[in-house]
């Protein structure tokens, strides 16, 4: 089975193409040892089965980021049979820079020209034959969004993969081996980098391998490489440079290997493993890209003419309207997600479904079967109350993910970062911090991972520390549950206030922490973000992305939360000697809870049930609701909590340390136990202090 890699710039339509080619036959995981997302999918096409690996979206192979290192290492170490490089033709020049770098890695390459329809609608023309000739690799025009050109692309990929896997010399940039692309033109960037062919034809090296060696980097060459150099056949007209072969090691078989090396999680550390591409080398590749661009793209209008995207941008980031529109969009997202009318109504329907219909049916069925009481207690009070209580919030969580994906896919997310950067700068953050923070409303884990795009250490650390204060989707059930019990008439407002408190505490934390870290000789961070053209989102990609998140939530409800509810049910039904207790305050949980409870007394919820609910929330925040649902009946809740102490409890669950999965992500991203410990202490400290303030001040004001 052939392995195909998909590489390209961010915003080139790579994800859309990946989804087109693989549909739902894809799995998501991480690259080994790092938290860069890895997606692998299957393509079935006319009896051929291919594995498609989605490489991270990158601008360059010059290894300054984990994404770039992951891409390079995959191509060099795993040797995919074909690399598909997707190019956004509306941004040809910069995309070609990556293409030229990819070409140098020496794997069979196919270029997929995406967004060809946009070029045509601008009235421009792109000469694909010429491009193929200049690049010396097959070039296929596609439109990932409109699902055009997929057959051509797949056929080219399969032909190339078969050529490659049969014992013929693999990919040959000169087109000597039956690929239908033409000879490179005299000015074409032509680099000889065929692999060892088994034909006795030696590896031809780029001229620059010698230069790289001379550069006295950490280049390691085998003894035979000197011979290979003398066997070099081609003198390239444009003398392309090998950008990043510093850790390259040539095996006797002539195959290029990247040295296996530990990927230091730290960006700055891992970047040091690879000396940088020289400016002149980069500039040279850009000159080639520019030359190709000029030869293949025929503009029908002056280069600075306004496109539709520019006109939209003039409004959305214009001097006067940008901020009101930004606030309006944020308000709309939260209003639609959390309002009673849409998200809330769907949630209510599900609640009725789980509690009344399913719960009722199971109850009466068990009664008819004369099942023991403990079974109905486990099923109805434990699992259905717990898992059902969590599943109820599926519609609101889906809506939130739909909006987050829409903001990202339309290109607005980058504009939001552009608009708020000035404010975030004052807090010691960057406009780019806005993206992880907004994602934090969905789930803290990917949000913390997204902070990686911040290159400055201090900004990244600060962003990671405050992102958990953005109330994630799993905390939503807690607010909804308490708000509808204690604040029935102001449900929306009370829920909204939680989000507001979270943002406020994030800002306060940022100001305090950056005031302390500022003195310590930090370097001023730079800010850089691409503002991609506005585009209509692709429905299929949107669906697949949201489905991925929803599936995740469902799987958690079916596994982790399910298991938790059984554990909770068990711990509250039995005592230390494993006897069934009549009063669950004598249960194992009762004992554990009453040890912690005194710490929570000043916050207004010093009962053992709240204490253990908060403990189970460490596994997953949804568990807080599941546990409360098991431990309390509604009547009990109303006597144990006042609206004030319920509010203090909600605030505590908002702010206290995030779930273990999020802590794991924080540990991986910070690469430091010290900072992870600080995050836990800071967040729990904030939770305690703010809840304390709310409860005590509220009591003084006579609200308790």
């Amino acid at each position: 089975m052939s392995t195909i890699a998909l590489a390209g710039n961010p915003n080139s339509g790579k994800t859309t193409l990946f989804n087109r080619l693989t549909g739902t036959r894809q799995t998501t995981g991480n690259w080994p040892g790092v938290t860069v997302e890895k997606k692998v999918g299957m393509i079935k096409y006319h009896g051929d089965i291919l594995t498609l690996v989605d490489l991270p979206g990158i601008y360059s192979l010059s290894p300054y980021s984990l994404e770039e290192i992951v891409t390079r290492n995959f191509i060099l170490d795993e040797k995919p049979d074909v690399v598909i490089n997707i190019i956004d033709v509306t941004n040809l020049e910069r995309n070609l820079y990556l293409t030229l770098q990819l070409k140098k890695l020496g794997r069979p390459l196919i270029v997929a020209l995406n967004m060809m329809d946009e070029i045509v609608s601008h009235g421009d023309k792109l000469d694909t034959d010429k491009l193929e000739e200049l690049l010396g690799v097959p070039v296929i025009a596609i439109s990932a969004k409109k699902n055009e050109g997929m057959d051509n692309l797949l056929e080219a990929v399969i032909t190339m993969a078969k050529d490659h896997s049969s014992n013929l010399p693999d990919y040959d940039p000169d087109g000597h081996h039956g690929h239908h692309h033409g000879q490179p033109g005299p000015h074409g960037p032509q680099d000889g980098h065929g692999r060892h062919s088994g034909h006795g034809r030696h590896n031809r090296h780029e001229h620059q391998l010698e230069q790289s060696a001379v550069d006295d980097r950490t280049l390691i060459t085998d003894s035979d490489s000197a011979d290979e150099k003398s066997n070099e056949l081609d003198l390239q007209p444009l003398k392309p440079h090998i950008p990043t072969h510093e850790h390259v090691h040539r095996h006797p078989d002539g195959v290029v290997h990247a040295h296996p090396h530990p990927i230091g999680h730290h960006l700055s550390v891992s970047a040091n493993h690879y000396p940088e591409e020289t400016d002149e080398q980069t500039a040279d590749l850009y000159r080639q890209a520019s030359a190709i661009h000029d030869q293949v793209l025929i503009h029908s209008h002056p280069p600075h003419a306004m496109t539709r995207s520019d006109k939209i941008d003039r409004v959305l980031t214009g001097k006067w309207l940008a901020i009101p529109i930004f606030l309006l969009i944020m308000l709309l997202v939260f209003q639609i997600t959390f309002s009673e009318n849409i998200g809330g109504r769907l949630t209510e329907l599900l609640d009725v479904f789980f509690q009344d219909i399913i719960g009722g049916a199971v109850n009466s069925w068990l009664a008819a079967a004369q099942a023991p009481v403990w079974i109905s207690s486990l099923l109805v009070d434990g699992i259905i109350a717990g898992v059902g209580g969590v599943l109820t919030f599926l519609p609101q969580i889906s809506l939130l993910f739909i909006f987050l994906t829409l903001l990202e896919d339309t290109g607005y997310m980058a504009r939001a970062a552009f608009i708020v950067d000035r404010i975030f700068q004052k807090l010691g953050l960057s406009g780019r911090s806005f993206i992880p923070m907004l994602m934090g409303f969905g789930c803290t884990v990917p949000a913390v991972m997204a902070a990686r795009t911040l290159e400055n250490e201090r900004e990244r650390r600060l962003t990671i520390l405050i992102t958990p204060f953005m109330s994630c989707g799993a905390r939503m059930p807690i607010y909804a549950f308490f708000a509808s019990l204690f604040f029935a008439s102001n449900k929306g407002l009370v829920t909204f206030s939680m989000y507001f408190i979270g943002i406020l505490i994030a800002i306060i934390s940022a100001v305090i922490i950056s005031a302390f870290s500022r003195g310590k000789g930090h370097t001023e961070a730079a800010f850089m973000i691409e503002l991609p053209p506005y585009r209509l989102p692709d429905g299929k990609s949107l669906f697949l992305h949201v489905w991925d998140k929803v599936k995740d939530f469902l799987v958690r409800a079916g596994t982790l939360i399910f298991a938790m509810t059984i554990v909770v049910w068990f711990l509250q039904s039995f005592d230390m000697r494993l006897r069934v207790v009549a009063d669950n305050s004598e249960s194992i949980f009762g004992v554990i809870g009453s040890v912690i409870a005194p710490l929570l007394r000043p916050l207004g919820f010093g009962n053992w049930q709240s204490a253990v609910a908060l403990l189970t929330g460490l596994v997953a925040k949804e568990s807080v609701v599941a546990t409360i649902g098991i431990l309390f009946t509604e009547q009990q809740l109303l006597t144990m909590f006042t609206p004030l102490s319920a509010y203090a409890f909600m605030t505590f669950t908002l702010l206290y340390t995030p779930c273990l999965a999020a802590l794991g992500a924080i540990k991986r991203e910070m690469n430091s136990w010290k900072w992870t410990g600080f995050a836990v202490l800071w967040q729990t400290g904030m939770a305690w202090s703010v809840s304390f303030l709310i409860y005590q001040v509220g009591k003084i004001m006579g609200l308790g």
Partner: protein
Amino acid sequence: MSLDELKPGQCATVISIDGDSLFRQRLIAMGVTPGTWVMLRKLAPLGDPMEIRVRNYSLSIRKKDARAISVNLVEGA
């Protein structure tokens, strides 16, 4: 002059970039190489950062970082 001194709509060619090396490397990798044409598209609503047009795409950087980019103003472009 440096890039931050351009007015919205003005074009220039890049002469050199100095300063912090990672930022500099990133800029070059994004195609802001010596000799490249850049245009200042606009400033963000709060006055910073700025949006520049380079190699037919839009890139946003802060004014203080743009100070490190020396440019030649292209009159009347």
